[in-house]
């Protein structure tokens, strides 16, 4: 029924558009047409938006509240004898049985009261859905008729449509912002619950991380320790390896593309870098597990270095490959936005291309490049799939890249897999880790954007 309603809204809005345009055309063509304020199309759009948008809002609200209203109705319609002496939980159970029955899923032998209630529910649902269509249609026709009377040569349909459209855009951005705020609030809420169980200083400065504690009484597990330092150290180690791989390669790629490559090379290399940016991280993940990690272990074995099968080096290296396109494309932009006059000025002094690059272009583009690197770093820190597949699970406090380390994202995933319980620190720790991760990447992003912004001001 919601589908039919939406279809009806589209059709009636279109009708409204043509009605509005048609009647505007009638006076636009006549005498004194120079005094018409808006083009006929705007009159059509004016009626269309006022017909379509309120009806759409009505249908959405109706569809989301209809279920709850009917539930209340069904409960209050149950016979007194049936509901007497039942707790709210039991009533809820009965309600879901009624709902199941109404949608055709029958378990066992339902009580006659339930059967009757289910039939009532079905009937009401039917009525409510049709009522929604009818009410929406009535609303639209009313608005159409009313708006039609407002159309006049001096009516400012164009400005009116503009206001409606800007309100629509404000609404959309508010939705995005509210979602973000909601996520942050839920992160904060659960983190505070976690810090009630585990003191915050123990979490931030503790050196031992053993979160796999028993959730059910019959599980055998360790006592648990929630010191996040080894986890963050692991994240930093892997991200550092990734940046060590990605910065030189990405930066030199950008320099080559901007200053040295001719158009033919650029037309080949740039799309390839874009393909690299488009590879799903899970593909990078099994590349890390199946190809890079064994190769590193073998190489380590040949050189007599003890290498873990899921070494930080393997995960970091592959993550580095993943963020190369970030660094190269942002550095490319930064170098390209250095005014051509700088380059010409340096070349006209008799500087070579590489002198121009190192002494003039790179210093001028440095803030933009730094911004790109910080964005890539925050991407690396938050990256999940590669490390889930290629990094370890045990939190070791080490800086040896041949060792196995774990990361924040890996721990979050592993803590939310299997048994979860929102009163156990094991589950809640995931939110605390997520919160810290969020703060770190947010900080890096803000810093990066600040740097990039400052740099933009320099030339404009």
């Amino acid at each position, binding site marked *: 029924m919601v589908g039919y309603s939406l279809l009806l809204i589209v059709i009636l809005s279109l009708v409204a558009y043509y009605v509005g345009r048609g009647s505007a055309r009638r006076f636009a063509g006549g005498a004194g047409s120079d005094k018409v304020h808006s083009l006929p199309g705007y009159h059509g759009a004016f009626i269309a938006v006022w017909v379509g948008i309120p009806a759409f809002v009505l249908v959405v609200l109706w569809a989301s509240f209809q279920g709850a209203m009917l539930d209340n109705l069904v409960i209050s319609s149950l016979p007194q004898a049936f509901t007497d002496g039942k707790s709210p939980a039991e009533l809820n159970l009965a309600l879901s049985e009624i709902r199941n029955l109404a949608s055709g899923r029958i378990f066992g032998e339902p009580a006659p009261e339930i059967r009757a209630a289910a039939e009532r529910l079905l009937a009401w649902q039917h009525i409510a859905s049709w009522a929604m269509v009818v009410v929406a249609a009535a609303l639209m026709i009313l608005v159409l008729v009313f708006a039609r009377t407002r159309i006049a040569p001096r009516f400012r349909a164009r400005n009116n449509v503009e206001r409606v459209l800007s309100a629509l855009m404000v609404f959309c951005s508010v939705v995005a912002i509210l979602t973000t705020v909601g996520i942050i609030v839920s992160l904060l809420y659960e983190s505070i619950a976690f810090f009630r169980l585990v003191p915050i200083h123990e979490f931030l400065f503790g050196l031992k991380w053993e979160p796999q504690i028993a959730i059910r009484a019959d599980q055998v597990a360790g006592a648990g320790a929630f010191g996040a330092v080894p986890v963050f150290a692991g994240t930093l180690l892997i991200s550092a390896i990734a940046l060590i791989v990605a910065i030189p390669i990405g930066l030199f790629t950008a320099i080559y593309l901007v200053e040295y490559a*001719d*158009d033919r090379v650029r037309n080949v290399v740039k799309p390839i870098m874009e393909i690299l940016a488009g590879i799903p991280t899970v593909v990078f993940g099994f590349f890390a597990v199946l190809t890079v990690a064994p190769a590193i272990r073998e190489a380590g074995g040949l050189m007599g270095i003890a290498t873990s099968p899921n070494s930080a080096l393997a995960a970091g290296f592959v993550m580095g490959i993943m963020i190369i396109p970030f660094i190269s494309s942002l550095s490319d932009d930064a170098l390209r936005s250095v*005014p051509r*006059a*700088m*380059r*010409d*000025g*340096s*070349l*006209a*002094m*008799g*500087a*070579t291309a590489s*002198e121009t690059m190192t*002494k*003039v272009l790179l*210093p*001028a583009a440095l803030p933009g490049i730094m911004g790109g690197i910080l964005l890539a770093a925050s991407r690396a820190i938050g990256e999940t799939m590669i490390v889930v597949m290629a990094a370890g699970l045990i939190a070791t406090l080490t800086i040896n890249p041949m060792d196995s380390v774990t990361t924040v994202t890996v721990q979050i995933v592993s803590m939310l897999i299997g048994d979860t319980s929102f009163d156990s620190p094991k589950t809640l720790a995931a939110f605390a880790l997520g919160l810290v991760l969020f703060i770190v990447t947010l900080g890096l992003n803000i810093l990066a954007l600040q740097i990039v912004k400052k740099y933009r001001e*320099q030339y404009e």
Partner: protein
Amino acid sequence: MADVALATRDVPTPEFQTVRTPDPHPRPTKVKADNVKVFYGQKQALNGVSIDIPVKSVTAFIGPSGCGKSTFLRCLNRMNDTIDGCRVEGEILLDNRDIYDASLDVVELRARVGMVFQKPNPFPKSIFDNVAYGPKIHGLARSKAELEEIVVSSLQKASLFNEVKDRLHEPGTGLSGGQQQRLCIARTIAVSPDVILMDEPCSALDPIATAKVEELIDELRENFTIVIVTHSMQQAARVSQRTAFFHLGTLVEEGPTDHVFTNPSERRTQDYITGRFG
């Protein structure tokens, strides 16, 4: 009849010929261009320009926008090499050496033929480092003291030193437009070039800053050969000794500045300087 038509076709079209008036007191030639043609891809921007640029004097190139005067200027230090699809034909001699010869190093050429651009383009470095840039990359100073000496004397020659002596280590981009342009001139003369090319050096400046730069150009003439492209005919008349008028990719007329401005030999020159077109 057919023979006559062929014969007239062999004669070079008069539009591509240059009217030349020699100097009453000729100076030795510093740069000699012979039949220079420039192509951007398929499009021809210059139709065979030949000109002798005398040493230690100011030569002004005038003409309407798109007439090829800047293109020709950029040939003289091979800045056109940096433009994709640009091709130069003909011969340009600097002190009787072909600057497009394969044996000539373009980096050395540009150290001898400096350039000042239309918009001041100081590097985002300190005033000192801006001027020290050229001497550093060309290894002109053996010690720090020597480098400082070069910087100070270049700033003095560009009559900028007194204005910036207390803030040599502040960014060059913080100066006013006129000061920035004089900084760019100081930067250019710091590598002691023979020739300085100026591509509309005052078009982004206010009248007072313009007057200062023009005064400076007049002083620099004693030591450097200067070629200046300008849209302002008053400026050409004020600062130059010889003037060359370009139109539609052709050098129409060249001669002593007072002759070109007071008694041009070509109709098109007359029309342009009296403001009838362009």
